[in-house]
């Protein structure tokens, strides 16, 4: 299905098999369906449809002359952004009452880069207040629920989750939940001490924390200036690589950015399992101390058992 990957859907958009407005509408519908996850603080329905309409019109106009060039690989692709990134004209709260009603007059550099690609902004995702947290449980707008909660709570109807739910992780829980619940193709989070990787792991999506200085922090409302980075959440590793390449680069408005080399490898979508090597930490006391030994080791055993044995020489 083209629904999973920005790259695939981008191809579909380019070939005209699906229109930007249809795609946007479907994603907005999905957001409504999964509203109980509380992944979004603001949903910019009107703005998103406007952007999508513009992309669709341009595609149509130029498509007739066979001269249409997509603005970029993400042209027409819907995305969401954690609510600690400044978005021009769109309320930016950092999940706090302190900034409730604050509308920045400028876009964060990384947000602007995505918009320059022609991507469509669906809304701002929920987080721990000012990114201070690792569970997305401390937001002034309510906690974020993990889309995989039913796996923990035991098979309940997916349209309702009562008081029994699993955390999404944080502080970029809303972004991770949005990507995991298929309401957008990629999301921007932020990472200071794991705030992108942690919810990525808990929600089962790809989460990338770039090296400090590779992506611009201009417009990212800071938690720890010397450690914050914008984070990338997608459903496939190759997609994360594409987005990283788009977003990286020195920004004159951020004096802590540095030039970085272009990614000179193309990551494939299809994974040849016979050629991979899996690394698993051998220090199991760490898991023991955390009290998760049984769950982790049984999961490991289960996974390892299902794969060819020559991949695990240590066993």
């Amino acid at each position, binding site marked *: 299905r083209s629904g999973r990957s920005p790259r695939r859907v981008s191809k579909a958009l380019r070939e005209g098999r699906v229109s930007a407005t249809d795609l946007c509408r479907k994603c907005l519908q999905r957001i409504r369906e999964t509203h109980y996850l509380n992944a979004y603080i603001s949903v910019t329905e009107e703005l998103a449809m406007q952007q999508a309409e513009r992309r669709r019109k341009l595609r149509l106009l130029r498509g007739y002359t066979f001269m249409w060039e997509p603005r970029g690989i993400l042209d027409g692709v819907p995305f969401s952004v954690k609510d600690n*990134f*400044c978005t021009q004209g769109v309320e930016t709260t*950092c999940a706090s009452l302190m*900034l409730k009603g*604050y509308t*920045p*007059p*400028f876009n*964060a550099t990384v947000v602007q880069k995505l918009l320059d690609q022609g991507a469509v902004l669906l809304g701002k995702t929920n987080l721990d207040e000012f990114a201070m947290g690792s569970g997305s449980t401390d937001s002034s707008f309510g906690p974020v629920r993990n889309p995989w909660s039913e796996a923990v709570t035991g098979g309940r109807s997916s349209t309702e989750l009562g008081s029994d739910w699993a955390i999404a992780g944080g502080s970029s829980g809303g972004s991770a939940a949005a990507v995991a619940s298929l309401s957008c193709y990629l999301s921007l989070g932020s990472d200071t001490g794991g705030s992108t990787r942690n919810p990525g792991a808990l929600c089962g999506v790809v989460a990338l924390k770039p090296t400090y200085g590779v992506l611009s*922090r*201009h*417009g*990212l*409302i*800071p938690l*720890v*200036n*010397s450690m914050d980075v914008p984070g990338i959440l997608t459903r496939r590793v190759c997609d994360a690589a594409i987005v990283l390449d788009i977003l990286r680069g020195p920004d*004159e*408005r*951020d*004096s*802590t950015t540095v030039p970085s080399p272009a990614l000179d490898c193309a990551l494939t979508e299809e994974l040849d399992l016979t050629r991979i090597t899996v690394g698993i930490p051998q220090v199991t006391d760490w898991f023991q101390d955390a009290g998760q030994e049984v769950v982790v080791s049984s999961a490991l055993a289960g996974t390892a058992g299902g794969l060819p044995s020559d991949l695990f020489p240590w066993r």
Partner: protein
Amino acid sequence: MAAASAGFICNVNVPKPVVIKLFSLNHVIKRRLSTSVTRCQSHCPQMVGVVGLEVHAQINSTSKLFSGSQVSFSSPPNSRVSYFDASLPGTLPVLNRRCVEAAVMTGLALNCTINMKSLFDRKHYFYADMPAGYQITQQRLPIAVSGLLIYSHLGGPKRNQVISKSIRIKQIQLEQDSGKSLHDEHQSQTLIDLNRAGVGLMELVMEPDMSCGEEAAAAVRELQLILQALGTCQGNMSEGQLRVDANVSVHRPGEPLGVRTEVKNINSIRHLARAIDHEIQRQMELLEQGGVVQNETRAFDQKTGLTIPMRDKEGLQDYRFMPEPNLPPLLLYVSGRVPAGLDPSQVVLVDRVKALLPELPGVRRERLVEEYGILPEHSYTLVNEDGLADYFETVVKATKAEPRKVIGWVVKELLSNLNQQNLKVNQSLVAARALAELLDLLETGHVSSTAAKVVFQELWKNPEKGAEKIIQEQNLGLMSDAATLQIICQKVVESHPEEVDIPKNVIVLNKLMGQVQKETKGRADPVQVRAILQELTSS
């Protein structure tokens, strides 16, 4: 009485009555001398004042230190404020290259060691005109350290000796200016204007090497001239481009320094001298009466000439200094040793800045003396007045008259006219060329020196007329016809028979000459007249 007790403490071994008498007399005399040079002498002969200055100089740049908004004096309120200046969340500082060059140039001009690596810090405190809640400054490692400000002032009994002194400069650092608060007492509100927030400042911290208001005033004047010559700061104290706070204490030489107070709200050099001298006196009197000097901040009230304590400082502030995480260390380079791959627009070369240093005031004074053979105190005056040295040099180049003759006209006639009407040199009603013309006429003998002075005043009133025209109109041309002069001299001698009896008396001769000049309205050729009179009186 206070003096007497001080006398007792100071000189234990001297017979009491004599000491007390002397001291009380001194006390009385000093009380009466309020504006003389001897302000530098201490109240009690043993105590001296110790003065250190903290100068904030606004950098003369187009945009602010960390943002692109414009620097301009008197724009509509809040019209020069960028997102960063307003401290909108998510904005970051970006260092202004021109400000760095200005700081380096100022450091080099003041003989400082330039730190090739310097760091930025945050200084936290809360005030409405500083939205970020912190000021970015350079506390740990500033851009320049260990300099020397060499200044001179006119001293000596006739105030015509150029005395050279120096102050050690502890450091020069780059920092942000804050916005302005306008307190509206009437409506109980404070209005904030952020136009000035974020403008680049150079803070010059000086060691307490001065002892009185006059020295401080001369030092600040010299600093003003240097900064103006460099172009790094316009140095206008009344517009707030140069702000000076004084740290004042008193002690006895050899003993540890006394408790210091900080004096603020000084907006002219004259007030600076007054404020410091008053504060020194206040502290000395306080100590003599057995009081204790508080470590406090005092504001100078220019109406009364007194310093008054400013409302609270809440004890010692903890500024919670921390490194500014959004700015990497500031690295400076020297030509030829720049690492490869650096964008040239991001590189400041210290040697290039040094090569751009203009002629500094001290050097200019010396050059004027050497090149034109004028007196040091005249050179001092020329450099001290804005534009006067340029005026002088223009006149010299345009006239045949010798510089030593020109200087008199510039320093006396021109300057006194300007001062009378409170005009600046560039507002002078007699342009340099016009004066040069007049001096040429004087040189070639078309007019006497006395008449020339009259012509000058006429030129001042009617600048559109040339010197020649005025001479013609008012008939001020030199009278050099021997016959006419002979007749006039004869007349004068005959009407003053009593003087003539005293032969070869210079004073008499001068008096007679004065009479002749009066008769001729100053037009007579003094050389001829003198000769004629001498002849007449000796016979």
